[in-house]
């Protein structure tokens, strides 16, 4: 499997990602991904039935940047806070190939939404299925698939999960 130092880096990746999503520093979000990395947010019913449609399928770091622009500049929405609670990642496999070290890992997550005049509610619950690679800048996401149980979205999802 992996040594503790690598696992510690992995833990940092998960917690740094959550912190960025919750602190509204959207420009930092694409930086967790490699250039051809992808972010997919998919309802569990599609995932379990083998249907390809996602709620969002951002197929490159460039497209993830387009989403950041959308969140910041183009989408009119109710402002809200969000708070990620991410479980301890479970390493599924580690491979060393042409591209170097490649870790496949998963972690459960819950995202809580708080609107300005409302209570805090469970907004999106699911798990991350990640492919992570080592780069000169540390561990990065080659892909992050968020499979969510909360299939009935509470109206909309604007910010990154």
């Amino acid at each position: 499997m992996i040594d503790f130092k690598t696992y510690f880096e992995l833990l940092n990746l998960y917690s740094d990602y959550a912190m960025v999503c919750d602190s509204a520093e959207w420009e930092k979000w694409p930086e967790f991904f490699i250039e051809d990395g992808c972010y997919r947010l998919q309802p569990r019913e599609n995932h379990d039935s083998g249907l390809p449609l996602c709620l969002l399928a951002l197929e490159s770091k460039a497209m993830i940047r387009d989403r950041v622009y959308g969140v910041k500049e183009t989408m009119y929405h109710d402002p809200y806070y969000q708070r990620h609670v991410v479980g301890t990642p479970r390493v599924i496999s580690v491979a060393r190939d042409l591209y170097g070290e490649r870790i496949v890992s998963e972690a459960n997550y819950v995202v809580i939404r708080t609107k300005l005049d409302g209570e805090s509610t469970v907004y999106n619950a699911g798990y991350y299925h990640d492919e992570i690679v080592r780069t000169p800048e540390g561990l990065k996401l080659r892909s992050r698939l968020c499979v969510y149980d909360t299939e009935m979205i509470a109206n909309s999802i604007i910010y990154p999960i």
Partner: protein
Amino acid sequence: MNTTHTVFPQPPEWPAEGNSRIPFWAYTRDDLHRKELDRLFYNGHWCYVGLEAEIPQPGDFRRTVIGERSVIMVRDTDGSINVVENLCAHRGLRFCRERHGKRKDFFCPYHQWNYSLKGDLQGVPFRRGVKQDGKDNGGMPKDFKLEDHGLTRLKVATRGGVVFASFDHEVESLEDFLGPTILFYFDRVFNGRKLKVLGYRRQRIPGNWKLMQENIKDPYHPGLLHTWFSTFGLWRADNKSELKMDAHFRHAAMISTRGQGGKNEDVVGGVDSFKEAMQVNDPRLLDIVPEPWWGGPTAVMTTIFPSVIIQQQVNSVSTRHIQPNGHGSFDFVWTHFGFEDDSPEMEQRRLIQANLFGPAGFVSADDGEVIEWSQEGFEQKPAHRSVIEMGGHDIGDTDHMVTETLIRGMYAYWRKVMGE
């Protein structure tokens, strides 16, 4: 004398201006909502239930909704499609809990009543009683007939792979219901090619269900609310466009051909959402490839009253199913699809353009948000009304989109059916 000013309508009367005003109480009253379910969803109308491609094989079923009544769409052994109400004839349970699956028959677990795929009651346990110590205990009375206790069966119509159903067996044909104008745009998408379901998206929007019909009968907002539409010319006031309705003004098609986008001072001057310098980092988001079946227009949004919207926005196609729950909320279920003869590249293109739509879409997320804010305003001041005067006071087809005529048309029809 009571001179207290009130924001609550007593008694509610439709504003004197007619269809260019919509009173907020049309969205806030539970009694009206129940009347709408009866008169619009359960009588006199065809409602969307799903796509044939969702239940390709005999025994395949999918649980879905008409208004607020749970129904099951199932492929029978002879290949035909039945729609039955998901409500046990014995004790009224909504017995089918899975969203989809495959069955030889249906049964309610409570007392194990068993129904055929047509909804006919096939058997009840202990019908003849239970023999014990030489005597028959209990059992159904002799006059109990299985055929009197089937599931409620709906009238079903299919066209081009789309399944509609009605609780009202006297309803006119689906073709007459849609009328020739809307039928043309329906058949444009569903022209006989086999559909391929790409997946689902669901959202619960805290607003009255009619607001979603209105949103897709309102060509005034897209080039204003939606940056992607105004900036990239996908849908805005200088596009070549047409608005068409059926003879009753209940259904509509908004037909538009993409323009060049960019800066046209008349159209985007002072518009907050217009971003002159905006470019997409990943061009695949706007990798639009015209398809022969479009026949010219790049987008046709068809509202079929009261239950569904058919979306063709460039290469993204979907049905959007309206499922009310109470006067102030509805579930909005998107079924994105392609066609079996799509190339892998076209399927991928449809999936990437789907990023513009749905509950998180670059474009559509805003629609759910503004509907929520509308409902909040209505609840706050129900004696007030909205102003629907863009394009004048009349109702009629147009060759431009700078009008709210389709909303006026929908309320002319609504008032007739509802008697308001």
